[in-house]
């Protein structure tokens, strides 16, 4: 990047060198340590100058009209021509020779008066306000405002105090100071403009009229950036005072983005007087999630302390599961494993940490088996990620004009919402976003070009891009930077493998590998889908196990039966199943001989590798539920019983072993992973509220370390052969079933967050209007969809974007499983 041009500005009589074009508020804070107070200005959004809090005196040096020389007074100081009125600092960008005064009486008066004005109708109910203690209005009033009010309470404007904005956010109209940060966030950053002002003057209020109200996956962020307590979440409302909570750094356990979060913990009588998660807050990581998180991350934390959790090892005797001691449980498992003579399979879900994956692998390898299956069996191509994944130093937040993001076969808003938010912003900055899918998805709204291909033919489309989409091929050819993001929607495992290969080939052919902001991304499900590949687990192994079931199968953190109706049949053929599970699921209920309770991400240390191959660390926040143990520890103890060496004492020790044994993780001990550096905008420090006035947390837990790709290391990567798979063809009276992903669903873990329930869709399927007419179906009718040996009843949605001859069936909405990959099935009206 070119060196930024510097300009000289003078703040309160002292000269500073600052980058040209920087916002004055930012420049004053970053370079002059001068906190110009703001309410409406937010460094992530365009300035609007609504709140008038940032008024400063501004001037330029006086010049002699004849010589154009700068005029000096008798003392040799520059004579400054001050503007007659104060200026809003947030709407100014710095320019050479700018003079600013922030400490004069005039400025102090203005700040005082603006605050008094903002407080004229403020209810001053700080004692009951959730923001009290971390409130910009409180802080700035203390610093600059009047000590006393001249307003009689009964004469203040009184508006409604409890106005639900949708199901998750509650608005207090009185507290609102009308800075429009929430409205601008929804409009500029998210692109769901579902908030707006209504009426004017003192009755100005925030409204939402979308259906459902406040229809977005990012609503929680508005409560963070609200400078007052006007917006609160139903989850945290009155949960705790801010000063009572301890923030523990953690990582989003749901998707490939790996958003950095803070778990704000406080003791609670409702949880037996133990520390529990009161709220989940974003933790700044400008590389990953900036200062935003999706609502699923924010509101989906309840499973960590749910009553449903399995709290003790369970052993099946005469068909019933009984609680037993760890010793007995582990002895039983060790016995079963020894007796299997190496005919052992292991399937691990994508929510397991790197340590868990490594420790379990040691046990299985130690017994002479190499059958390490990744679950779910939807995404593959980890080896291509390792070769031509997005280059080290990639930052989606830096993509802009001339860059291209190509999204194929993914409903990215539902799969990885934070990526969708950041790519939408890249689009706003001028990057070309090309979206290709078999059906209409939300990302189409933020796309420069959209393309449709026949269901299941994503790889065919991409491999022959020049013919199938000449415009896209042209854009890709002339792209300064190119990121290809693949999903697996409407694809079989082979289909996704082919798509990944086609994407990798395109990247290699056009030379977009081994550089920052270039390369391959995929929406691997779960928090550690990429980590699975690096530690030797592949979905192909799981498929192989289905074809030839092992004698003993270890299933860790994978709710397999909920993922596909065909799983039950082959699990039946396994002699003994050992389950490592947090919650009771189909496997623990019917199949498992032994159930070993594992801890959630909040109860233990560990690391996840996110979709961009960033290894990030999460910390212990909550005490364990019952006798549950971290998965890695169970594996280690099991290894000890099997004579494979002493169990490790900490996750850090396991990570050290990984760093020493797996080349990709070289040098990644916990110390390296917890390194932080200064980030901009700076949300840290004692006085951050003056500037940022939100409640995002400073990153103290580490920014993570990215695993370099082969291309990054300068190795030559070669294009491979794309093995185009056969595409399921619907016969007469049959339909192609395209499983899709919903962010809010009824998965075992997410189901326990009852606050989100109103937003989970009633099970539905999208049917093309032509097909619906043939079957005599209208929207709202109940239809039965049968495929892969299972069947579900869902409501038909005829208005959706399903291509003709196919049905889009969201996964994990129904109690019974629906297929996880594209297939054919029957649809009938009930």
């Amino acid at each position, binding site marked *: 990047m070119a060196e930024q041009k510097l300009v000289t500005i003078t703040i309160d009589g002292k000269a500073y060198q600052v980058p040209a074009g920087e916002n004055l508020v930012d420049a004053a804070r970053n370079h002059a340590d001068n906190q110009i107070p703001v309410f409406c200005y937010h460094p992530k959004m365009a300035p609007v100058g609504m709140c008038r809090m940032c008024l400063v005196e501004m001037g330029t040096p006086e010049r002699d009209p004849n010589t154009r020389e700068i005029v000096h007074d008798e003392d040799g100081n520059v004579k400054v021509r001050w503007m007659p009125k104060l200026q809003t600092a947030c709407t100014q960008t710095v320019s050479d020779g700018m003079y600013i005064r922030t400490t004069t009486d005039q400025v102090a008066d203005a700040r005082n008066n603006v605050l008094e004005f903002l407080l004229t109708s403020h209810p001053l109910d700080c004692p009951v306000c959730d923001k009290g203690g971390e409130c910009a209005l409180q802080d700035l009033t203390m610093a600059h405002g009047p000590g006393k009010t001249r307003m009689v309470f009964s004469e203040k404007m009184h508006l409604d105090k409890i106005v639900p904005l949708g199901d998750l956010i509650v608005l207090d109209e009185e507290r609102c100071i009308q800075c429009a940060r929430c409205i601008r966030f929804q409009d500029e950053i998210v692109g*769901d*403009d*579902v*908030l*707006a*002002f*209504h*009426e*004017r003057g003192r009755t100005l209020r925030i*409204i*939402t*009229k*979308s*259906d459902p109200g406040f229809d977005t996956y990012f609503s929680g962020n508005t409560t963070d950036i609200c400078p007052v307590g006007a917006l609160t979440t139903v989850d945290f409302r009155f949960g705790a005072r801010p000063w009572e909570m301890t923030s523990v750094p953690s990582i989003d356990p749901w998707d490939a983005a790996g958003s950095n979060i803070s778990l704000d913990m406080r003791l609670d009588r409702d949880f037996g007087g133990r520390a529990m998660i009161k709220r989940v807050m974003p933790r700044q990581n400008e590389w990953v999630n900036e200062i935003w998180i999706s609502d699923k991350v924010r509101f989906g934390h309840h499973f960590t302390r749910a009553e449903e959790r399995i709290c003790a090892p369970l052993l099946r005797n005469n068909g019933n599961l009984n609680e037993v001691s760890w010793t007995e449980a582990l002895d039983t498992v060790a016995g079963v494993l020894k007796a299997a003579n190496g005919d052992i399979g292991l399937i691990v879900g994508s929510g397991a940490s790197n340590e868990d994956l490594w420790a379990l692998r040691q046990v299985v390898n130690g017994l002479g088996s190499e059958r390490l299956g990744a679950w779910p069996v939807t995404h593959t191509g980890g080896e291509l990620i390792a070769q031509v994944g997005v280059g080290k130093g990639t930052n989606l937040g830096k993509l802009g004009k001339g860059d291209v993001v190509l999204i194929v076969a993914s409903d990215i808003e539902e799969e990885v919402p934070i990526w969708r938010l950041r790519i939408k912003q890249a689009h706003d900055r001028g990057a070309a976003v090309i979206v290709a899918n078999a059906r209409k998805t939300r990302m189409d709204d933020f796309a420069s070009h959209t393309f449709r291909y026949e269901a299941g033919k994503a790889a065919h489309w991409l491999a022959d891009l020049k013919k199938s989409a000449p415009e896209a091929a042209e854009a890709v050819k002339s792209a300064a930077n190119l990121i290809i993001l693949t999903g697996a929607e409407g694809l079989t495992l082979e289909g996704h493998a082919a798509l990944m290969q086609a994407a990798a080939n395109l990247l290699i052919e056009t030379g977009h590998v081994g550089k920052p902001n270039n390369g391959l991304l995929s929406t691997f499900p779960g928090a550690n889908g990429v980590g699975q590949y690096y530690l030797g687990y592949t979905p192909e192994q799981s498929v192989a196990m289905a074809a030839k079931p092992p004698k003993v199968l270890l299933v860790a953190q994978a709710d397999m039966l909920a993922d596909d109706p065909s799983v039950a049949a082959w699990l039946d053929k396994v002699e003994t199943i050992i389950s490592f599970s947090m919650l009771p699921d189909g496997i623990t209920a019917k199949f498992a001989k032994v159930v070993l309770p594992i801890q959630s991400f909040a109860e233990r240390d560990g690391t996840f590798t996110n979709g961009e191959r960033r290894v990030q660390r999460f910390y212990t926040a909550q005490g364990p539920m019952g006798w549950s143990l971290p998965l890695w520890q169970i594996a280690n103890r099991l290894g000890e019983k099997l004579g494979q060496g002493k169990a490790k004492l900490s996750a850090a020790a396991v990570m050290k072993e990984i760093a020493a044994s797996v080349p990709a993780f070289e040098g990644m001990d916990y110390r390296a992973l917890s390194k932080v550096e200064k980030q901009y905008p700076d949300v840290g420090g004692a006085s951050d509220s003056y500037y940022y006035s939100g409640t995002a947390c400073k990153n103290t837990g580490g920014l993570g370390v990215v695993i370099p790709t082969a291309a990054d290391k300068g190795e030559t990567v070669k294009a491979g052969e794309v093995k185009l798979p056969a595409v399921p063809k619907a016969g007469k009276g049959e339909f192609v079933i395209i499983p899709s992903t919903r962010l809010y669903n009824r998965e075992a873990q997410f189901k326990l967050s009852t606050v989100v329930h109103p937003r989970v869709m009633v099970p539905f399927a999208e049917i093309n209007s032509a097909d619906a007419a043939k079957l005599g179906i209208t929207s709202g009718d109940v239809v039965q969809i049968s495929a892969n040996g299972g069947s579900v009843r869902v409501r038909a949605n005829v208005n959706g974007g399903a291509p003709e001859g196919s049905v889009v069936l969201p996964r994990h909405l129904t109690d019974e499983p629906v297929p996880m990959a594209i297939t054919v099935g029957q649809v009938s009206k009930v």
Partner: protein
Amino acid sequence: MNTLQEKYADRIETTLAKYPDKRSAVMALLYIAQEEYGWVSPEGIQDVAEVCDMDPTQVKSIAGFYTMYSERPKGRFWLQVCTDLPCALKGAEKFHHDLKEYLGVDEGGTSEDGMFTVEHVMCLAACDKAPLLQCNFHNYEHLDMEKMKVLLDQWRAEVNAQVNKS
């Protein structure tokens, strides 16, 4: 196809044609919605949002900002009395008060028969003709209660005649 699109297809088309993009037509379309529903009802908002391809929130926001969109159901005759200072000096405040009393309504309320809604408004730009009111966007000037009663009876009679005819 919503109600508005079905009933006013031509007008919507001509309105949309006047503007560079759909979004710009929202205010003109809101008038059509107000005409159809008698006020800017939630259905009207939804219809306009669909035509303009906007979120209903934004349409509602616009309807709320401008006073000539009514966000509450109105009587058949919407009487807006200016009570700003120049009008008040010429007796508009008393006129406004008397009118409400005569019709038995509160500020912004609608008479029992659903005929009249009385509301005070800011300047109607005819101070020299005060007291005056605007009824369904037509000005009636130099009023007093006697003239007003005549007018009210006249309007009632018109409506009754229409009802009888149909």
